[in-house]
């Protein structure tokens, strides 16, 4: 019910912004003068706002809204911002249509998104052709920056980075004599476990590999894991099966570290495994879960005020992208066009909420921070970045 109301609100907001955008589209510079007398610029958002994965899109667009609301309320602001949303359902099929709608709207000066890797891959050729900047908060497929897109950036390290960072964390911070690496036989899981195991090998850490299709009964798998006597179990898969695996291991009295990756970073994990079994589990993610980080308390409060919800996965990243775009526009003076923004964005260097926002020439973020979370008192808490934790 709440979700339906939310979608309704989003639809209404989209309709409203589109109408306003249409009314003000007679300005050549893509900016118009708002009621405050300041110029008004429009940025676009592309991500899944309907369909089964829409929660991630809602998390993203709410991060963008939070950044825009903060900026528009800032008395020192020299311009105001407006948002245009496009729903791509996270699918490669719908991506180009959503991208075309943003490109055809001449007011849109820069885009936050697309959010999913598949939709990003399908949409970027059009953004590159149009010279419209598109910055993804969340697309992690390693290949995306190797395809020659000229206006594409992302603020999240790619999938390969996580596996290597986690392997370093295990080797240097946990120093186990043996690791059990288990994946869920999915594309994501096998990809992650392969990178992880490659790095463990070069780090000289012994590991045992196994692969198990998602199931509910992990009893005999738990026996197999425990018989190998590993200090660390790393599961490359998603939260619902990770919860079952955790329960099975705890039922058999396993006392070592139970770990997983970004696919398991969801409060549902604790819900499904039970707080007692989940306690002490460690989850890695290249993303910042704002509630787990005390330093992000201001953002969480502001997000709640603007959207009436709790931040979710990728909210903080979308917030950072929006602020980076604002920062770029600020530095442009009166010359605010698609071309000038796309030309200047690559040289940005600001401290964001999640990390230092600075890019390589390919569009990858230079600060490839992978964060470690631990379940404490039934909640996900941030332990620190891998580089901090392996330094000492």
């Amino acid at each position, binding site marked *: 019910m709440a979700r339906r109301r939310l979608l309704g609100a989003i639809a209404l907001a989209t309709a409203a912004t589109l109408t306003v955008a249409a009314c003000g589209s007679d300005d050549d510079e893509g900016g118009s003068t708002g009621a405050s007398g300041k110029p008004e610029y429009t940025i676009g958002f592309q991500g899944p706002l309907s369909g089964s994965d829409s929660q991630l899109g809602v998390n993203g667009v709410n991060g963008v809204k939070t950044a825009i609301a903060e900026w528009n309320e800032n008395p020192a602001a020299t311009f105001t911002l407006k948002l245009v949303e496009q729903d791509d359902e996270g699918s490669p099929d719908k991506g180009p249509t959503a991208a075309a709608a943003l490109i055809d709207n001449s007011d849109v000066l820069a885009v936050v998104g697309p959010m999913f890797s598949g939709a990003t891959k399908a949409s970027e050729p059009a953004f590159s052709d149009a010279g419209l900047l598109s910055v993804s908060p969340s697309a992690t497929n390693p290949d995306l920056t190797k395809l020659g897109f000229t206006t594409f950036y992302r603020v999240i390290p790619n999938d390969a980075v996580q596996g290597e960072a986690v392997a370093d964390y295990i080797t240097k911070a946990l120093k186990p004599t043996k690791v059990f690496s288990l994946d869920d036989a999915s594309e994501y899981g096998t990809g992650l476990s392969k990178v992880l195991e490659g790095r463990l090998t070069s780090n000289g850490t012994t590991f045992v590999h196994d692969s198990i*299709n998602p199931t509910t*009964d992990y009893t005999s798998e738990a026996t197999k894991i425990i*018989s190998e006597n590993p200090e660390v179990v790393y599961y490359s898969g998603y939260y619902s099966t990770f919860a*079952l695996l955790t329960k099975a291991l705890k039922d058999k009295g396993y006392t070592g570290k139970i770990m997983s990756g970004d696919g398991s970073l969801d409060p549902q994990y604790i819900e*499904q495994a039970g707080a007692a079994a989940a306690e002490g589990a460690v989850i890695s993610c290249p993303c910042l879960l704002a509630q787990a980080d005390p330093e992000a308390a201001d953002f969480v409060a502001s997000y709640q005020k603007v959207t009436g919800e709790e931040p979710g996965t990728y909210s903080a990243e979308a917030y950072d992208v929006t602020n980076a775009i604002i920062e770029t526009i600020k530095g442009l003076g009166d010359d605010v066009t698609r071309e000038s923004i796309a030309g200047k964005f690559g040289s940005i260097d600001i401290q964001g909420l999640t990390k230092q926002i600075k890019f390589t020439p390919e569009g990858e973020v230079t600060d490839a921070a992978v964060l470690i979370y631990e379940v404490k008192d039934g909640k996900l808490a941030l332990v620190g970045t891998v580089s901090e934790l392996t330094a000492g």
Partner: protein
Amino acid sequence: MDFVHQFWQLTVDGLMSGSLYAVIALGYTLVYGVLQLINFAHSEVFMLGAFGGLFAARGLMDGGDTPSGLASVGIVAVGLGVGAMVGALAAFTLERVAYRPLRRRGAPRLAFLISAIGASLFAVNLAGKEFGRNNVSMPEPFTNGEVFKIFGASVNTKTLVIFVVAAAMLLILDTLVARTRLGQSIRAVAQDSDTAVMMGVNVDRVIVLTFIIGGLLAGAGGFLYAMTFTASFTMGFIPGVKAFTAAVLGGIGNVRGAMLGGVLLGLIESYGGYIFQASYKNVIAFLVLVLILMIRPQGLLGERLGRAA
């Protein structure tokens, strides 16, 4: 390979999964016995029973600490009872809505199959709508810990509860089929329903009761499953397929065969998953099934294939 060292632990694990398969498999085999049809909606009876038991147990616990002693026993008993009742109710409804109208009209065998699949899809989607699409886990009704060791294999509380309950249910059912009047009627209908009618057996009543018995077992099994693993709207499918396999392995229509098949399948999976990569678990289990059926097409304890109906 220290398979030898883990042999007993794997046996305990396999027996646990196997006894759950056996409990569900009985529902398939009983219905097959009296109607000669595979009740493909049986997995949903199991799922609904699991949710029934889970919500009852959760209602009793309602947050708070893990109960102990008599409270734990009470919660498990209530969960089993409610699960069994919900399962029985679901099976009864299923028979009334999806099978009886077809039987009255003398519909062809295929119509029953389609009707069962339809009922199954209906139940799965209704449950998904009502109970959500996420896994629903049950709070622990007791503190799970090692109870005793057997040949170095650890047996914990959950495993023990499953063993005891499943064994009790299997024993009761076996006695019921072998010694009571109802069991005699079930066997009579299974052997030759036309003659049974002439002998004064109320076939409709026997069929309904057979569904209800299968539902009771599946519902209670569902509660045990939800207690050990998790419950979700799609939870019925895989155990359903496994239990059906177990029933075929043991010889469909044969009560003791279903029990044997279930336990055997659990053991094969447990050993196979250990010796080979765990992803091969199902491959090995079904390979064994195919091999056994090649040698004994009627299943391990099956008597004959064709029926002189």
